[in-house]
């Protein structure tokens, strides 16, 4: 079957829409393979606008891994803005890939990466535009298999009506396994139709096929049990974990769009996983154990990526980059290597720690020191013990003051409100802290030209975390706490004018909470919202709380549950949670104990340094911590002109991560 490009029919429409460049593809390092040259065709979707989706690392990695296979091709598709979607419906042009503008409808698989639950309505819009039935049970052999991935896929129950499978954990290897299964099934003449294909996929480790599991409910609305409906599918589905990250140095050829995106830089993931144990953090819980790239592996990726892209900035990504075992040396040696080349280096996420200021100074050695970001998350020492992100007020003020003293003009502090056990007093301490930081900072820097921006959002409890049982604060509580905080910050104008407050009201968090900890019954709410015109829920100008609240009230009423039941209700220890049959490796008893420790303000250490505390992941998954130091260093590159000339790619070959446990 040859598939025609939709571009000739799309092009006249593009002249009539905003930012048409986002729909034409042709990004540097993108690729188009002939349709008939491969057995398996993947469309990869990031369910948000192109400018948000195109820099996504996960999608970029899978795109490259799949396209390297001789028997597969992968193309990308993104959420289409309403202006173009309307024209496409009028002209009968379906959802298309940006690479070769092929119809998504004609691919074998549609992989969708859910970084957040707020992309669910955009999946429905894309399926509808593509001409693919919304409900998985209505699809036949001619339709793509819809595969959900990403962190939100650890509870895919709210979208289980719409996806055929969900993949748990790292995607690099499992996409290959899925490709093998689809290729074999196609070459055998599609035996058993779609159901047989899904049954085969359900036997791939990490792949969950919701239709083979039946959920029953108790009279009180909770889940009675989740049972498989076939003997040949696993009773629980386990996540996938990629070990030895140096062997997976993707993306090797990062995509560089012509259009502006939300991240105008190249990213290198320096490690995956985090065991700091912050109790609110789903990413830190579901991506264990920590697996580091070696210093030399990172050096090779930075060098190859800069050559392949021409970017002028590299972000060293991870959940807590300063925790890399070789970070000090890495920062120094990268700064040495790129000195005088107008190449910027940055660490995006930072704990409150004096060492982070040292690192940031090193990376900005000869560049502008504009802004530095710290994430204390909790306003008071007490609440920071509850969330297990302990830092004393004195240390916090000292760290931020050091930053000002070192020439940083603006410090951003990230907080959450609505955390379990939180009171107004915990949040009001944020104001005290900000005032103190500005006072001390003005003194230390000798300048009034310093700023502190407090950025604060409502906490949303997530599955597979110790807070999965917690009551989510209501929108009214969040809005009240933000109000008293705002008043406290503005109390003294002489200080307050140096403090900025950025916040979102509490309502969107309630909907995120519904989708995060929802079960299959929530699928009707999502579908209703989409039918009522809802999409782009991550965008305040498109998000409508009232539309969601109305849909939830009406669609959930027949089940005897409501929005509050899913959000502000605290769960009991033995309640069957919608995601209990999906295994992140974390022991549910350990999670419960950690939840109890949170309430009694007891801290837990980091297993990299204080020993194993039996969270359960390594033994359950057969994995282990992979960290350095390796004792290696980066070979200085001969720098000619504005760019490094020596390809150090060869030293990746000697990279062998040191394993410790």
């Amino acid at each position, binding site marked *: 079957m040859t598939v025609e490009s939709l571009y000739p029919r799309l092009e006249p429409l593009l002249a009539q829409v905003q930012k*048409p460049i986002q729909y034409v593809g042709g990004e540097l390092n993108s690729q188009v393979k002939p349709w008939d040259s491969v057995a398996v065709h993947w469309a990869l979707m990031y369910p948000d606008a192109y400018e948000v989706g195109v820099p996504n690392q996960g999608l970029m990695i899978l795109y490259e891994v799949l396209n390297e296979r001789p028997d597969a091709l992968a193309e990308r598709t993104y959420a289409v803005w309403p202006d173009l979607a309307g024209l496409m419906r009028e002209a009968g042009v379906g959802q298309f890939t940006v690479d070769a503008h092929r119809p998504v409808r004609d691919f074998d698989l549609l992989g969708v990466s859910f970084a957040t639950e707020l992309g669910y309505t955009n999946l429905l819009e894309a399926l509808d535009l593509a001409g693919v039935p919304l409900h998985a049970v209505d699809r036949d052999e001619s339709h793509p298999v819809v595969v959900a991935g990403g962190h939100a896929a650890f509870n895919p129950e709210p979208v289980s009506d719409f996806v055929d499978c969900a993949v748990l954990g790292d995607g690099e290897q499992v996409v290959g396994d899925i490709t093998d299964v689809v290729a074999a099934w196609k070459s055998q003449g599609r035996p058993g139709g779609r159901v047989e294909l899904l049954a085969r996929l359900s036997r791939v480790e990490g792949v969950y096929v919701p239709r083979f599991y039946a959920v029953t409910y108790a009279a009180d609305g909770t889940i009675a049990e989740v049972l498989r409906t076939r003997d040949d599918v696993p009773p629980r589905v386990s996540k996938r974990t990629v070990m030895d990250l140096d062997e997976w140095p993707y993306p090797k050829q990062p995509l560089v769009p012509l259009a502006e995106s939300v991240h105008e830089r190249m990213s290198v993931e320096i490690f995956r996983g985090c065991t700091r144990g912050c109790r609110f953090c789903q990413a830190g819980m579901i991506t264990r154990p920590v697996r580091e790239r070696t210093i030399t592996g990172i050096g090779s990726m930075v060098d190859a990526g800069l050559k392949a*892209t021409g970017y002028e900035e590299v972000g060293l990504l991870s959940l807590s980059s300063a925790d890399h075992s070789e970070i000090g040396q890495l920062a120094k040696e990268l700064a040495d290597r790129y000195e005088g080349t107008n190449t910027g280096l940055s660490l995006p996420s930072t704990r409150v720690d004096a060492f982070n200021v040292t690192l940031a100074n090193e990376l900005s050695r000869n560049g502008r020191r504009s802004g530095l970001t710290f994430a204390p998350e909790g306003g008071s020492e007490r609440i920071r013990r509850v969330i297990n992100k302990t830092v004393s007020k004195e240390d916090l003020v000292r760290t931020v003051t050091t930053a000002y003293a070192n020439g940083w003009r603006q410090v951003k502090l990230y907080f959450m409100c609505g955390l379990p056990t939180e009171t107004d007093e915990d949040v009001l301490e944020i104001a005290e802290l900000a005032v103190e930081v500005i006072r001390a900072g003005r003194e230390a820097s000798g300048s009034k030209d310093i700023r502190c921006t407090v950025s604060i959002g409502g906490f949303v409890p997530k599955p597979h975390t110790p807070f999965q049982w917690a009551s989510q604060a209501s929108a009214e509580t969040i809005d009240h706490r933000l109000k008293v905080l705002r008043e406290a910050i503005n109390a003294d104008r002489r200080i307050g004018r140096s403090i900025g407050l950025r916040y979102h009201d509490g309502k969107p968090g309630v909907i995120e909470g519904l989708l995060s900890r929802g079960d299959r019954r929530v699928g009707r709410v999502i579908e209703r919202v989409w039918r009522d015109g809802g999409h782009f829920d991550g965008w305040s100008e498109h998000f409508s709380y009232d539309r969601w609240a109305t849909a939830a009230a009406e669609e959930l009423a027949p089940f005897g549950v409501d929005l509050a039941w899913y959000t502000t209700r605290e769960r009991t220890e033995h309640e069957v949670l919608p995601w209990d049959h999906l295994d992140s490796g974390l022991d549910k008893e350990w999670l419960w104990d950690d939840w109890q420790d949170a309430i009694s303000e007891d801290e837990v250490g980091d297993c990299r340094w204080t020993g194993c505390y039996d969270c359960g992941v390594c033994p359950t998954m057969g994995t282990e911590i992979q960290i350095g130091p390796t004792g290696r260093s980066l070979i200085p590159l001969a720098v000619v002109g*504005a760019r490094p000339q020596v390809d150090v790619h060869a030293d990746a070959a000697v990279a062998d991560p040191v394993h410790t446990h």
Partner: protein
Amino acid sequence: MARTPDGPPPPPTVQKLRLRYTKRGPLRFASHRDLARALERALRRAQVPMAFSAGFSPHPKISYMGAAPTGAASEAEYFEIGLSARCDPEKVRAALDASLPPGIDVLECVEAVEGSGSLADRLDATRWRIDLPGVDTGELAAAVQELLSREVVTVAKRTKNGLRDIDAREAVVGAEVTEEAGCAILTVVVRQLTPTVRPDDVMAALAVVADLRPPLPARAVREAQGRLDDSGEVADPLGPDRTMRSSLQEESTPV
């Protein structure tokens, strides 16, 4: 105390190059900001020794001029770069062309000759070719005749300050109607005034004077950009640099 960058100031500009490039195919949908980003990254990949401004956030020395609007294709976009080391213009052209996506093709690169004046001053008119599928050639010719016979044709133009009335007639220097493969083609030479009269504005003017409303979107290509010569033609803006360069070379050739 305010920090200042350590070390010596960045090396000065020792050579200026003037380049002509295209915006073809799907890349006609790129905006001037998209193109600027693409060019800057391509210059880095091609390892062109750019001169940078001083300070904490050094910028490569690049001047963009007269960008064609988003959605319009172009065979004649121009920009100027400052280099910190002398380079062979043809080698820079080839290296840059190779590192840009297909559709942004670098066609020419000449060294700016000192005293030859600014390039921006030489870009005061554009020759547009506007393909109008579905429009009758005779009807188009009549509409163009009507437009040229007017003194002033007011059209509403969308600017960042909202809709604004402008005269689309004054800027039009000349227009010609032809037909290729059954498609009516309007070739129009437009002077670059402020606010700029773009192909959209010319089409709006044709709608005003003759109610010409194409059934399909018009496709515009900037064929040439430069100074208007006495015959109403658009002259090559890189011409003066070429002429002065070759006469300089003749002077310096030992007899």
